[in-house]
């Protein structure tokens, strides 16, 4: 932790208080009633003023009661696409008592969005989902979670910050792709255009029902006759197209972002078309492969492109 961060942390109050819109109006009315009471000496105005001020004090006390015994845990996804909403989950627990009207969000505005929890009972963890948006690609260090409450009257939003460090990989946004790159190997056979095809020349992988417009030459007639429907033989593919996507290491900032977005989009497109996709970028190589796990590997590599290892500055 740098000295600046320590200093900022030391200066930061344990609770922050924001006045809501209705709270502002309420305060203006309270001020007006107070001035009216002082000017006129009308005792009923003093009575109303006393009630209004008590409500303000009570708001502070009850909201403190709500957020003081809370604990929160962040449940991160594997990664998230930049500028696309994704679900971030928080688990909020309370040792004793009850909490009401709790808003959970990332501290310091790291991610836009929040989760709402109407009630938290003691010993019963509540998982709430926040639809958040990460602004840009790269490793996003999440430092703190903010728990806020509007309870009891919605006049003020009292917040408490929990230091909770996590790293979220923000994958590049999948941008527009113009031209698919040249395949590494130019072979093409059978139903290569079909996304679901598994009709390579390797070992038998399995049987499945013949789909629309699929090649009837692959039907396993004997099995089909026994089950009464057309079943197709699937074999391991050895005829996939392989692509290796490359991003130059000397690309300037904006261009790098665009390249990453395009590469992410291409990866998705080529994988969905049945190809194997690899990546060469920033001195790192990922051999061509397929499947969701492989796509995540490529996306994670793209996310880290241009960034140092977690914990270091870009």
């Amino acid at each position, binding site marked *: 932790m740098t000295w600046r961060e320590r200093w900022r942390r030391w200066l930061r109050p344990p609770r922050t208080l924001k006045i809501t819109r*209705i709270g502002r*109006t*309420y305060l203006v*009315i309270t001020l*007006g*009633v107070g001035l*009216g009471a*002082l*000017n*006129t*000496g*009308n*005792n*009923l*105005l*003093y*009575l*109303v*003023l*006393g*009630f*209004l*001020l*008590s*409500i303000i*004090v*009570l708001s502070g*006390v*009850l909201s*403190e*009661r709500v957020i*003081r*015994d809370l*604990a929160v845990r962040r449940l991160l996804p594997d990664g998230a696409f930049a500028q696309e909403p994704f679900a971030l989950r928080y688990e909020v*627990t309370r*040792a*004793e*008592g*009850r909490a*009401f*009207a709790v808003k959970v969000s990332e501290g310091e505005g790291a991610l836009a969005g929040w989760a*709402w929890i*109407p*009630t938290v009972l*003691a*010993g*019963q*963890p509540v998982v709430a989902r926040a639809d958040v948006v990460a602004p840009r690609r790269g490793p996003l260090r999440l430092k703190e979670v903010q728990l806020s409450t*509007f*309870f*009891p*009257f*919605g006049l003020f939003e009292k917040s408490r910050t929990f230091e909770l460090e996590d790293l979220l990989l923000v994958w590049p946004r999948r941008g527009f792709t113009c031209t698919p790159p040249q395949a590494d190997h130019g072979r093409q056979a059978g139903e290569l255009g079909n996304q679901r095809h598994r009709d390579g020349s390797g070992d038998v992988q399995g049987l499945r029902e013949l789909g629309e417009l699929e090649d009837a030459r692959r039907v396993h007639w004997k099995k089909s006759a026994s089950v009464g429907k057309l079943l197709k033989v699937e074999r391991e593919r050895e005829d996939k197209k392989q692509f290796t996507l490359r991003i130059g290491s000397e690309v300037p900032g904006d261009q790098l972002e665009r390249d990453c977005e395009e590469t992410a989009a291409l990866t998705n497109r080529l994988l969905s078309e049945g190809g194997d996709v690899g990546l060469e970028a920033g001195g790192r190589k990922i051999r061509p492969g397929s499947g969701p796990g492989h796509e995540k590997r490529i996306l994670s590599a793209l996310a880290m492109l241009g960034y140092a290892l977690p914990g270091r500055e870009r």
Partner: protein
Amino acid sequence: MNLAERRTLRLRLRDLAAASSFAAVALSGALPIYVSIVFGAALFLSLAGQRPFERHPAWSVVVLLGLAVLLFGLAFRGQLDLVVAAVAFATLVTGQRMLSEPTPSTDQQVLLASLLLMTGAAALSGEIWYALCLLSFGVFACLSLGMTVVEGPIERDEELPLAPVMRQVSIGVALALVGGVSFFILFPRLSWNLASRRTGPGLLGGTTGMTDRVRLGGGGDIKTSARVVLRAKIEPRPTAEKLEKYWVGRHFDTFDGREWRGTGQPEEPKPRVMLGDPSAAIIQRIELLPAYGSRTLVGLEHPVYFGPAVALTTSGAMPANLIKVGSEEVRIADDGNAYTYTAQSRDDAPMREDDPQVLEALRRLPPKIDPRVSELATRLAGSATDPEQIARRLEQWLRNNLEYTLELPGEVEDPLADFLFVRKAGHCEHFATALAVMLRTRGVPTRVVGGFFGGERVSDRYVVRAGDAHAWVEAYSPARGWVTFDATPDDGRGSRPQVLIAKILDAYERLEELWRSRVVDYSLIDQWTFVRELIRPPANASRQQEDRDERPEPSTRTPTRAILAALAAGIAVWVVWQRLTGASARRHPAADFLTALERRLDQVQVRLREGEDIERLPERLRREHHRLAEPVRRASRRYLEARFGGRPLSKSERQALLDALTAPRNS
């Protein structure tokens, strides 16, 4: 409770809060009737679930702006009070919002507009109804706001347990009320209460209706009324709880056989009326309430001065002139719902009358009188010649031989003869008439006085009820002037509230009196007295001191009571604060286990690294193939279950887990 039910409940609470604040304004009597009708319709529609402005929000705002122009136009032309116009506009805004789309934001706007109404009502009214309306508004508004807050910015159709929310908010409201009252009592008043319009026309109207004539016949329903018609602060302050004194209202000098009337002519209105020498007089600061229902001023016997009067109307307090009507009465020239003024009286110096024509008029008998009346007076007077002596004899005979009753059904031709010789029972007007007429038959100038007898102390004031209305006689003695005689038996003088309604009214009036003296008229002096009595409580007055009308000296002892009270208040505040903030919430048992666990780990040389917690420690120990990895994992897991999973840890289990950390393991 699902979303639809929650929304219905929330809107009902919101509407009830708005209705409470509207009631506070409406009961002040200042709100124009058309505004009340409009709001009533809006409330009805809202409670019925109809919201016509939901589809036409822009048009409703245009209509509202038009009404604003109309109301404030009326105010600037002087046809409507500005405060009333503002309150009326706030009422219309509340109604408009109630009929708009029911979102949480709209609910909050309705409640804020209702809060403005409550504030306006505080400026327009000082009735005790206001307290009830404020209470119900506070409760309903807070519950509605609490529901709105828990619902969140976006309504979701999921089950929500509302009972704990309501319980929490209810406790909050109760504490807010206590806090509000404490603030009210303790916050120093920096100005006098000058601008309140605390007197509305009253819900029940005037009761006594003191008129310029008294007609014999009929019952005495008023004697059962417990309504307070007059409040007076008397200086020097009497010590008696019950004030056995006459409050003079007006005199009647002419009797026609059926009714008494006054014949005096009104003089020019003026701010003050002097009737005699006010030196060493008893000073009374009197408030005539709406229940009084008359403009005749009242003062303790014998009034010598009536001072500056203020008429309290629905549009505020304004100075009022006084009109003296012959020697009969002093009345207020201007109309109002209630009046305040100062009166001074001297019971030791009866008034004198030097005009022989006036005295002659007060000896005049009705044109038709039963001869038995005169015969009876002659027989009772006997040989007495002194007017006072004659009056005393007649008074005693009437009090001892005739009965007091309020049951006088039917009309009779000669009520006096009927009272004296047939029924031999009547109420104060019969007794006073009989005494006055019999004295006149003996040539003694007399007049009947209408007013009140009695008064009971409530805090530092005396209140007089409608049932205390009374009639008695003043006879003129050349030696002493006007002397008071009262032929009515003792049990017929004061009020006789017997029926249930009278008791309820009595309770209400007492409550209202408390409300006025402790809330509406609460001042810096009251605060000072409160603090002074807290610090230096007055010593108990002895009977002798009370008899001598002496005030007890303040105690000079150490203010033990004040210290104890302050200590008790401080402890109470601390306890409430601790309970609310949970600062004194007992430590979770699992936390104790964690402390013991950490201590034990320290003993066995297993230390947490920087930034490492008990949850992650077992993982590291496992990686390091530490012999205590498994027992630490079990203890750590069990701690987390006990702390956050709601699975409490028994003593034996805790001990077993800790013991496992000392025994060598081969894992």
